[in-house]
């Protein structure tokens, strides 16, 4: 009996050790007040090595504030943050060496050329073989042909890429990107996402975004944050599965489908029918149990011609809006 307890203990200790080692970002109870305004409220989260974590939230949610604390730009009011094994408050300089940061405002020295700028940043980072590394990074952001352009003459998207290049220069273990694809055209958005995906696996990436499809496309894990609090945290797929609750089924019939709403409402398990347009409906069903055969029967028996019947998960978009709405409602209820 004793032996088992000792053994269990040993295993447990080992696990925590591994957990710590793989945790590139570890945040506990992080709180920031600007005067009396609470910007972030006891945030706790982590990011493992090689993970791409998305920080998703509406304007003013506290994304930039959190990132600024993680990068050592400003201190927190309370709480603890460890990045790449270094405490960002007590061991700030060492932590900063291991972080690449693209601030939301993409600060650049516009009077410098792209090369001069990266050279300056590389010198501050004390890069060995600076020229080679700058060339490498410029290639990875597709800016090689603009090395000598003044930054003031670059488009928004190109500036974004120069900012990204700057964050990558010193091969940081942790990359913190504040809205990396904002202001880019679709082709560039795809490029940058591709680049970020390539970086993940090797480096830990934390990015913020308003765009849900983006989080869905590139992140291993999503943190949904609103008003300084984490509302949900999971992989995009599981978030969708967990939060959609019931099933949603799409139905399409030939013609305008007059009277179909009533018929569908009579099917047991259906909780709501949303007409989308003539002959197209979306049906919410209670969780558990597959009601598609029942719906098909109801449609066919009622004399409509069934064109299409498909299961639809809730999109991340809807989950996000729902979470934010729920939170607001809760607050109202509390205030009332």
């Amino acid at each position, binding site marked *: 009996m004793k032996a088992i307890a000792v053994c269990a203990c040993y295993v447990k200790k080992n696990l925590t050790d591994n957990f710590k080692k793989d945790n590139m970002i570890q945040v506990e109870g992080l709180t920031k007040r600007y005067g009396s305004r609470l910007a972030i409220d006891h945030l706790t989260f982590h990011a493992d090595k090689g993970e791409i974590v998305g920080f998703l939230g509406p304007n003013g949610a506290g994304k930039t504030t959190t990132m600024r604390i993680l990068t*050592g*730009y400003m*201190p927190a009011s309370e709480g603890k943050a460890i990045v790449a094994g270094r405490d960002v408050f007590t061991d700030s300089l060492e932590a900063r060496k291991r972080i690449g940061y693209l*601030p939301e405002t993409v600060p*650049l020295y516009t009077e410098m050329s792209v090369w001069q700028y990266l050279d300056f940043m590389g010198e*501050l*980072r*004390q890069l060995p073989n600076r020229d080679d590394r700058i060339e490498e990074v410029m290639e990875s952001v597709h800016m090689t042909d603009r090395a000598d352009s003044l930054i003031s003459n670059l488009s928004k998207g190109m500036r974004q890429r120069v900012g990204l290049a700057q964050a990558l220069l010193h091969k940081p273990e942790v990359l913190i990107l504040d809205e990396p694809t904002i202001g880019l055209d679709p082709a560039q958005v795809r490029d940058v996402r591709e680049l970020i995906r390539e970086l993940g696996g090797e480096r830990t990436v934390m990015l913020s975004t308003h765009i849900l499809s983006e989080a869905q496309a590139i992140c291993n894990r999503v943190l949904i944050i609103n008003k300084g609090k984490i509302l949900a945290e999971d992989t995009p797929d599981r978030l969708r599965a967990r939060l959609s609750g019931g099933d949603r089924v799409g139905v399409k019939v030939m013609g305008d489908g007059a009277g179909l709403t009533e018929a569908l409402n009579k099917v047991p398990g259906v909780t709501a029918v949303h007409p989308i347009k003539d002959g197209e409906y979306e049906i919410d069903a209670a969780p558990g149990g597959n009601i598609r055969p029942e719906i098909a029967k109801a449609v066919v028996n009622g004399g409509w011609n069934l064109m299409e019947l498909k299961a639809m998960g809730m999109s991340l978009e809807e989950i996000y809006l729902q979470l934010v709405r729920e939170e607001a409602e809760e607050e109202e209820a509390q205030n009332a």
Partner: protein
Amino acid sequence: MRNTWTIAKREFVHYFVSPIAYAVAVLFLSILGLLFVANVNNVAQQGGSPSISFVFGPLTTLLLFFAPVLTMRLLADEQSKGTLELLLTAPLQEWELVVGKWLGAWLFGLCLLATTTIYAVILYAYGNPDTGVVYAGLLGLALLIGAILAIGVFASSVTGNLIASVAIGYAFVLTIWIIGFAGQVVRVLFGGNQVIATVTEYIDFAGHFSNTFNRGIIDTTDIVYFVSVIAITLFLATRVVEARRWR
């Protein structure tokens, strides 16, 4: 230390691509040239021997007006353009940033000062100036420029606005100048050995230059004074930059 040099280099190079710095340099040097011609002409007509101190004396006053313009953008621009976020999240300490900014400006100031040696060359060509005054004057001016620029760096650290930065720079520099001037008035009105006059003259820049360096005297008191002004103002500027993080 290496970071200080990185920052200093960037600032120094920036002066040579900045139109404002050029405007300042041109205006500064032309006013100095006019004063030189006028003074030398004057002394020569009275049969005296022109000295380099005729250039160095007015130069100290000119510096009061030009230095805050040279330093205004050093830290103010980083704040208004958001690039301070870049620097403060790089592995760079605040003092390295502040000292680097000052060093870059000082090196440019020394370049301006170097151009005034042309007047020494002219004097040597046509007369017999006191070599001691030339060397001591250059040393004193190098220190004085350093001190005024350090005050400018401090002014630039407290605001993100260029105009405010210049105004604060002038406020400091002129306050110091007025304190010295008031001391002189006291001395004239109430006689030589007034404590107030001694104290105010100690605070003022001019007394540490015109009475010693510009007469060919190198006094450690003056060197200590200028180095202290530089150290204290840069220390304060560092604290201001550090405090920015807490906003």
